[in-house]
């Protein structure tokens, strides 16, 4: 499992990394924690001629609030996100989901930016970030732009990132009204396992807390990329919590239909589709009950 030779350069700053990336072109690969990249280099799936390391860039390792939004640096490690007091209070769905990634060893090295840019259809951080309406700040040498996470993926392992661009930070607008969320992951073992299917469900109430102002549902591992399912969200949006409870089956059925899972060595497509239906029931019930009983944040 020897890794093919490559050139390595440790970036002293994001700015210098962007300059270097522009010069190096498409043969260069950016490394953050490397828990996916090094593995893929060992397996000869990715063979870069040059690796630009962001691993020691402290400037992209942070969680902070600014006005009504949370900003997470792309190099923030899963273990730090899972344990962050601010995120645990306001966005527990994200902390719970990244706490399910790999093992403690992986979570101490792997970063949220790496998990997103690696673009696995089954990335555990993505469905929760999608239902939270996450926006990505992508930097290049000349400009910075904001991209919605919903439109970031173009296929398995593929994103809309262009040569010379680096994911800099993730922005999440804090829910204004009472909200609750739930992420369920199907796995065969309790640790070190890729998700066979993942369902994230998030709901926010109206100002008077009587109706659901916003419902967001995202699925992982059951399509070429993680996906939102607006058709299923629309069924519950605008309803009272009690009305929504009675419509969960319709919502789950439509979400399962929207999935396009594949058969592979880990699970069959029909099993994955069934799990979407089951997990949607479970997550929606949990979230709606929480909102009904005055829970959530």
């Amino acid at each position, binding site marked *: 499992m020897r890794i093919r030779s490559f050139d*390595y350069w440790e970036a002293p700053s994001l700015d210098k990394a962007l300059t270097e990336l522009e010069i190096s072109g498409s043969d260069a690969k950016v490394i953050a924690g490397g*828990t996916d990249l090094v593995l893929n280099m060992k397996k000869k799936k990715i063979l870069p001629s040059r*690796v630009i390391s962001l691993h020691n860039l402290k400037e992209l390792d942070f969680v902070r609030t600014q006005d009504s939004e949370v900003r997470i640096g792309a190099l923030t490690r899963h273990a730090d996100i899972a344990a962050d007091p601010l995120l645990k209070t306001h966005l527990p769905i994200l902390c719970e989901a990244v706490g399910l990634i790999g*093992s403690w060893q992986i979570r101490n090295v792997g970063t949220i930016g790496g998990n997103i840019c690696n673009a696995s259809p089954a990335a555990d951080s993505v469905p929760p970030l999608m239902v939270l309406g996450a926006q990505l700040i992508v930097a290049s040498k000349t400009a910075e732009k904001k991209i919605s996470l919903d439109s970031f993926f173009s296929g398995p392992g593929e994103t809309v990132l262009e040569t010379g661009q680096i994911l800099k930070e993730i922005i999440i607008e804090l829910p204004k009204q009472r909200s609750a969320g739930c992420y369920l992951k199907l796995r065969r073992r309790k640790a*070190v396992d890729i998700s066979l299917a993942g369902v994230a469900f998030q709901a926010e109430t109206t100002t008077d807390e009587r109706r659901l102002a916003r419902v967001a549902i995202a699925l992982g591992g059951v399509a070429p990329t993680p996906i939102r399912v607006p058709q299923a969200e629309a069924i519950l949006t605008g309803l009272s919590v009690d009305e929504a409870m009675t419509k969960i089956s319709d919502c789950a059925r439509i979400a399962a239909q929207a999935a396009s899972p594949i058969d592979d060595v880990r699970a069959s497509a029909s099993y994955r589709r069934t799990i979407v239906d089951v997990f949607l029931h479970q997550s929606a019930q949990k979230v709606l009950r929480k909102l009904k009983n005055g829970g959530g944040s």
Partner: protein
Amino acid sequence: MRVPIHIIVNGEEYHLEVKPNRVLLDVLREDLGLIGTKKGCGLGKCGACTILLDGRPIHSCLLLAAQANRREITTIEGIAAEEPHPLQAAFVEKGAVQCGFCTPGMINAAKALLDANPDPDEAEIKLAIAGNLCRCTGYNQIVSAIQSCTPSTSDRPAAARGESNE
């Protein structure tokens, strides 16, 4: 191409020139002779190569040696001083070591847990070592060895009751 790195391993400073395609595990074992860290799957699944990077457990098989630049590393060789660490004594006493291949990684994960949370419950112990596979013991003895090093247990082995050697 070689990359200069400066690392502190078990308290000792090293200035090394490493090829970028080498992982930290191989540099520790082959260049520094620290063969206590084991090479199992090489794919970040088994945890045998677990070391502490700035006090936190990581897979040394998945970290490029160049990525460890300016970091502090603890291997199993750095866990014990004159006497075995209380965790090591507890592993011996509880029969948590059979073939021994997973032990250095297990001890490192357990040490990081106890450093961060001196009194973990059983669930927290199991979560901390979830990334370390053991094919001999069935884990019960390992969990019980770690438990015996926590203050809330009444079942502490002799070595763990004494002064910690840190």
